[in-house]
C-alpha cells in the first residue's frame, strides 16, 4: 500500500500534538507503519471504538456517525468484518480448545481457594444468567455436534443452537454471526425437571417465543437430562442486528407476559424461582 500524500495524512500523534513540537520523522514513520498495516485513515476510529460499535454499546448518534464513516472507508469495513467473523477470522486458532483450557484453569483457581473478588454482575452480564449459567461442577464435557465441537458444562443449564444453512448443519458459538433465513433448532442441558421456554429478545426490546411452538405459555415440565433436542425449529427473519436467545426454566408453568427485557444488552427479568441461560446472535446480511 502506498503512503498517503504528505499533507493529507495525519497520524493520531500528529493530529494531537501541540503546534511547534517537532518529533523525529523516523520515529513517526516507524511507529505509524503499524497504522499503514491497519490501513487506517486520519479519521478512522480506534480498535476499541469499533469493538464497541460491533457490540452495540455506543449511543445511537455516535453509532450513526461511525456507520457513515464505514460506508466510505474500505479499511474500516474490513476491520468490522473481522469482528463479525469472531474466532472464525483466525484459522490457526483452536478457539474451543482455548476456551476449554481457560474454563478448566479457572475451575482450578477456584479449587485453590476463594478469590478476593468483587461482583461485576450487572455491569458485565445479566444477574439471572450468572445464576443459571453457573459452572456448578468443574468437569467439562465435549459433545460432537455436526462439524464442530461445542463445550458443555456438566451439571448446569446450557443452551445449544443448531443452525441449518444451505443444507448444512453446524453448532455455532454464542456471539457468532447469523444470516436472515437461517433455520435454528435447540438443544438443552436441563439440571432438573422444569418448565422451559426459549425466548428471543430483539434490540428493540421486543420478545418472541421460539419454544414451545404452540403458544406463549408452558404447559408441562420437561424431565431433567443432558443434550436434549427440543422439538420444532424457527427461521430467522430479515431483520439484522444483535438478538439474544434465552433458555428460561421455572419450577412452575409460566407465560411470556411474565418476562421483561431489563437492559439494552438483551437481558431479561425473570419470575421468582426461575433461571436462564443466554445465547447472543449477531444477525448480518450474507
Amino acid at each position, binding site marked *: 500500500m502506498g503512503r498517503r500524500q504528505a499533507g493529507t495524512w495525519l497520524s493520531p500523534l500528529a493530529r494531537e500534538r501541540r503546534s511547534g513540537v517537532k518529533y523525529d520523522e523516523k520515529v513517526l514513520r516507524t*511507529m505509524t507503519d503499524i497504522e499503514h498495516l*491497519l490501513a487506517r485513515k486520519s479519521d478512522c476510529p480506534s480498535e476499541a471504538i469499533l469493538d464497541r460499535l460491533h457490540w452495540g454499546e455506543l449511543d445511537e448518534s455516535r453509532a450513526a456517525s461511525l456507520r457513515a464513516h464505514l460506508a466510505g472507508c474500505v479499511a474500516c469495513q474490513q476491520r468490522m468484518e473481522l469482528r463479525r467473523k469472531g474466532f472464525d*477470522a*483466525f484459522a490457526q486458532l483452536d478457539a474451543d480448545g482455548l*476456551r476449554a483450557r481457560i474454563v478448566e484453569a479457572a475451575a482450578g483457581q477456584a479449587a485453590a481457594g476463594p478469590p478476593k473478588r468483587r461482583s461485576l454482575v450487572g455491569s458485565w452480564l445479566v444477574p439471572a444468567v450468572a445464576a443459571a449459567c453457573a459452572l456448578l461442577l468443574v468437569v467439562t464435557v465435549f459433545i460432537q455436534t455436526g462439524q464442530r465441537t461445542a463445550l458443555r458444562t456438566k451439571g448446569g443449564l446450557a443452551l445449544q443452537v443448531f443452525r441449518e444453512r444451505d443444507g448444512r448443519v453446524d453448532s455455532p458459538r454464542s456471539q457468532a454471526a447469523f444470516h436472515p433465513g437461517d433455520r435454528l433448532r435447540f438443544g438443552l442441558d436441563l439440571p432438573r425437571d422444569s418448565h422451559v421456554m426459549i425466548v428471543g429478545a430483539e434490540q428493540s426490546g421486543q420478545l418472541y417465543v421460539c419454544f414451545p411452538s404452540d403458544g406463549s405459555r408452558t404447559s408441562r415440565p420437561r424431565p431433567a437430562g443432558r443434550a436434549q433436542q427440543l422439538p420444532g425449529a424457527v427461521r430467522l427473519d430479515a431483520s439484522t442486528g444483535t438478538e439474544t436467545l434465552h433458555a428460561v426454566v421455572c419450577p412452575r408453568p409460566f407465560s411470556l407476559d411474565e418476562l421483561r427485557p431489563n437492559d439494552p444488552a438483551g437481558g431479561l427479568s425473570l419470575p421468582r424461582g426461575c433461571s436462564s441461560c443466554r445465547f447472543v446472535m449477531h444477525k448480518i446480511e450474507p
Partner: protein
Amino acid sequence: MERTQIGELFDKYGPSIYRRALVLLGNHHDAEEASQEVFLRALRHLDSFEERSSAHTWLIRITTNHCLNLLRDRRRRGELRKQHLEPVPGRLPAAADPGDMLQVRRLLAEADEDEARAAVYVFVEGMSQAEAAGYLGVSRRTVGNLIERFCQWAAGRLAPG
C-alpha cells in the same frame, strides 16, 4: 463477574483480546497463551477492577500490560531478532513488512513501561490521546508527555550508529 462466567466472557471478548495479542506478539502460539493468561489474570485480580470502567476496557489494559511484559522477556532472552511474523487477519499483506513490526516490538520492549503503554494505545490501537488517557488512568496532558518522551527516546534508538 463471577468466575463461573468465564466461558461467556471468553465468547464475547475472546476474539478482541486474541487479535490484540496477535498484533503485539506477532505469532499465534504466543497470542493464544497470552489470551489464556489475560482471562485468568482477570479472575485472579477481580479486586482491582474499577466498576466505573467496562470489562472490555479492563481486559484491554491487562492484555497490553501482559503483552508488553512478554516482549520484554523475549528481549531479555534475545528472541526478538528471530521472531517470525505470522499473517494477522485484517492486515494488508503487501504492507505487512516484518522488519517494521520487529522494529516496533523492539522499541516497545526496551521503552519505559509507562511510555510503552501509551505508545501501544496511541499508535497500535489508534486511540486519540484523550481516549488513551482513559485507559491509562491519567490526564490527556500526561499522555502527550509520555508520547513525547517515547518519541524522543525512540529517535535516539533509531539513530544510525
